[in-house]
């Protein structure tokens, strides 16, 4: 079966676009919902009306974003079957389970409760409503957990083995899949990034009210919550991002080397390249500014373990391809003669490297016929796009450190009750609004673009995962997505701006005339 290269490119483009688009809304949902839970808790504990109104106002913006998250999430669930049918067959036994459990455990709860969050203010008691909000928050984070368990397995496919009779990967230990260290690190890193986004959203819009002198008490309270929640989240995202880096270095050495543009293995402890211009052609990095020791410490948590460079990794890969070809040959022998003991033994010894033989299918039909030149080409194809990863990673990390600084300063201002003193600070807070999105999207690029050419690291090349659809069909769907997604983006942004501009005062949520706590809130 010849795989159409256009279908591969288009399917990848479509997946990347729809995933990046979905990821504009999900982290905000993840973060904002906890802010709502915190605000409503304060309301229930103190009985002060302003906290209820804060929950309701930020809830309106949450609702607009939530709808977009749900709508674009359906695409993700469909697309594995539509565009990645062979992937779905090859790994569904392992990868499908966390997705299904996500639905059972988290998304059902989330979808059922979200309506009550909006419509339940008058129908259920205060405490019950608070419980709804808390469970909603819990469900969104649980949802992220199971999705990242699935994603973590793509990066580090533990707890599974190849079955030649069914031609697919099957689960051998689900607890290994569940407690995959990569998945755990990714989960905390990703939800923390969402919490930062939620905090920044509230901080920036509140800063805008303060700049305009509108909703002052309302905005200051919101900023205080955002500052404390944001500081904790920003610290967590950077510290646990480091944990994520450590996990990557253990099992995705090539991704790590590409992020660092580390062409040759450095003597331990390796240095960290702060700045440089990666040169793919000559396999070198120009104008490199290096911090000694730092990379070795982050990547290996030691001073004596080396971090392998790209050139060495390619040599290793060639050996894996050789093993993979033996496994592939044994697999075909077994297909004709399923009791061939010799083939069984060879397959058992080398099935971990079978995926490396499949890499060859990109260049030739039958991996068994590979020449040394083909093997070299296949090995070279395992280098991801170095300049993109190098820069995406550095900008993301810079954003992370900036968030810590901004939220720390906000926290200090909030505790001194000086949030509205400095206009430059308010402007800075307002204009920082896009940065969490920049960081989150770049993070996705580092993680997923950096995984290429693999769909499942070392197991299934992305190109082999596609469906047997035609390029014309994918062009049609891609065109449809671009059209509808652009229209929805415009509508979503318009509504967000409209309701943020209206503000709690414009929506009649604050100040309330019937509220006895108004005086207290103003004081």
């Amino acid at each position, binding site marked *: 079966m010849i795989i159409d290269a256009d279908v591969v490119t288009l399917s990848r483009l479509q997946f990347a676009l729809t995933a990046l688009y979905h990821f504009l809304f999900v982290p905000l949902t993840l973060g904002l919902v906890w802010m709502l839970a915190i605000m409503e808790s304060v309301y229930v504990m103190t009985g002060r009306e302003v906290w209820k109104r804060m929950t309701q106002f930020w809830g309106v913006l949450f609702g*607009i974003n939530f709808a977009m998250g749900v709508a674009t999430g359906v695409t993700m669930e469909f697309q594995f079957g539509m565009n990645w049918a062979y992937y*779905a067959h090859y790994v569904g036994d392992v990868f*499908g389970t966390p997705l299904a*459990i996500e*639905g059972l*455990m988290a998304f*059902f709860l989330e979808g059922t409760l979200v309506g009550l969050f909006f*419509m339940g203010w008058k129908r259920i008691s205060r405490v019950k409503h608070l419980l709804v909000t808390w469970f909603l928050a819990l469900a969104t984070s649980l949802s992220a957990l199971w999705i990242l368990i699935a994603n973590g397995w793509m990066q580090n496919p533990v707890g599974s083995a190849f079955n030649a009779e069914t031609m697919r990967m099957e*689960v051998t230990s689900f607890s290994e899949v569940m407690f995959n260290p990569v998945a755990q690190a990714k989960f905390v890193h990703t939800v923390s990034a969402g919490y930062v986004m939620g905090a920044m959203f509230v901080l920036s819009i509140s800063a805008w009210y303060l700049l305009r002198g509108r909703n002052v008490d309302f905005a200051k309270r919101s900023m205080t919550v955002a500052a404390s929640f944001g500081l904790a989240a920003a610290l967590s995202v950077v510290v646990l991002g480091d944990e994520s880096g450590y996990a990557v270095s253990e099992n995705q050495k090539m991704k790590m080397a590409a992020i660092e543009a580390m062409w040759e293995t450095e003597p331990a402890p390796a240095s960290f390249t702060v700045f440089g211009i990666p040169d793919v052609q000559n396999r070198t990095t120009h104008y490199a500014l290096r911090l000694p020791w730092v990379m070795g410490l982050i990547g290996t948590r030691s001073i004596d373990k080396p971090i392998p460079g790209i050139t060495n990794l390619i040599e290793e890969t060639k050996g894996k391809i050789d093993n993979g070809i033996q496994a592939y040959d044994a697999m075909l022998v077994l297909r004709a003669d399923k009791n061939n003991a010799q083939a069984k033994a060879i397959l058992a010894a080398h099935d971990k490297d079978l995926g490396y033989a499949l890499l060859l299918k990109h260049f030739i039909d039958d991996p068994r016929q590979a020449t040394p030149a083909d093997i070299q080409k296949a090995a070279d194809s395992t280098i991801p796009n170095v300049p993109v990863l190098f820069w995406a990673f550095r900008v993301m990390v810079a954003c992370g450190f900036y968030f810590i600084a901004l939220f720390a300063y906000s926290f200090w201002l909030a505790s001194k009750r000086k949030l509205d003193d400095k206009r430059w600070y308010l402007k800075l807070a307002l204009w920082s609004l896009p940065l969490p999105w920049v960081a989150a999207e770049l993070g996705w690029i580092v993680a997923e673009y950096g995984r290429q050419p693999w769909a499942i690291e070392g197991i299934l090349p992305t190109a082999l995962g596609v469906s047997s659809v035609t390029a014309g069909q994918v062009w049609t769907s891609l065109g449809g997505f671009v059209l509808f997604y652009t229209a929805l983006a415009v509508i979503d942004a318009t509504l967000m701006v409209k309701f943020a501009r209206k503000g709690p005062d414009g929506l009649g949520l604050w100040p309330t005339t019937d509220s006895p706590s108004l005086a207290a809130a103003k004081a």
Partner: protein
Amino acid sequence: MFDYDTLRVIWWALLGILLIGFAVMDGFDFGIAALLRVLGRNDEERLVLLETIEPTWEGNQVWFILGGGAAFAAWPMLYAVSFSGMYLAICLVLIAFILRPVGFNFRGKIHDQRWRNLWDWVLVASGVVVMLISGVAFGNLFLGVPFQFDGDLRMSWHGGFFDLLHPFALAAGLVSLSMLLAHGACWAAMKADETIAVRAAIFARWFTLIYVVVYVLAGIWLAYGIPGYAIVGPTVTGGVSNPLFKDVARGSSWFASYLQYPWFWAAPVLALLGAVGVQLTVGKRGLGGFLSSSLMVVGTILSAGFALFPFLLPSSLDPRSSLTVWDASSSRSTLGLMLGATAIFMPLIILYTSWVYRVLRGRVTLEHVRDSSHTY
């Protein structure tokens, strides 16, 4: 704990339950959306109709999402072949699923009649598209679809969107459309303001009548006009999940399983009893009509699933490639594990869903819509 073949039957049943859950719970949401401009004569009435489903459609939709996830995990080949094979049809359904949430949420956000009309029609279209295409897709299962596997179990599909529009498949689409329109109308008769409810009850009767006619005709067509599929030779029920290890012949009857297990007849009888129930009770505008239409939906889906058993997706191009309950499932450990997860979470889901519906019980009146300020 369970044998491989038992687990497969359980997961076949669970797939059916998820499909039924989706059709019963989300089916009326689609019905309401499609009938929005017919049942609701003005903006206020349409607000009433939307408010009857607004707090719950999101949870209801998860039946579908979960169905997709469960198919991916328990029947990966079924998920892969059907979603990629019927590519453009699935695309249409997907677009409907994308536009629906934003339609529900964004429609009320701007007080402008053109804006609201636009979203009304988007909702109508999304409802019709999903109800119709689900039925057409199901109809195609009986006709067999043109796919085959190679030795690597890579699937290829030889046909396009218009090949799905066989007259029998269109009839199946009509069954699904009229059934869910009736179901939606029964919901409106129970939940919406009396003025709308009276209208909805009339629509429910008519749609049920159309449904009965098309359903019975489609059944007769299936019995006499559509050849069935059967596994040739001894059926290996607990074997390896590889469709190519068996042989399949076309030419038997889709009603063969009904002859083998006569209790299967309970399903179509249930569907028709439900239809009679709608005629008798929907005029009272209470729970009776809605329960009857739910019964109708349950019976219809069961009757189709029973006829197909043990097939999930027959192949017209290469019958051997057909997916059956015995050779298209996940591994035994995955089925077992997922069953455990379902046993824990499904009761919880039913519990909190019931609680939410209890909180939201009662009719949505025109006064209520006039009183509440609609910011969301």
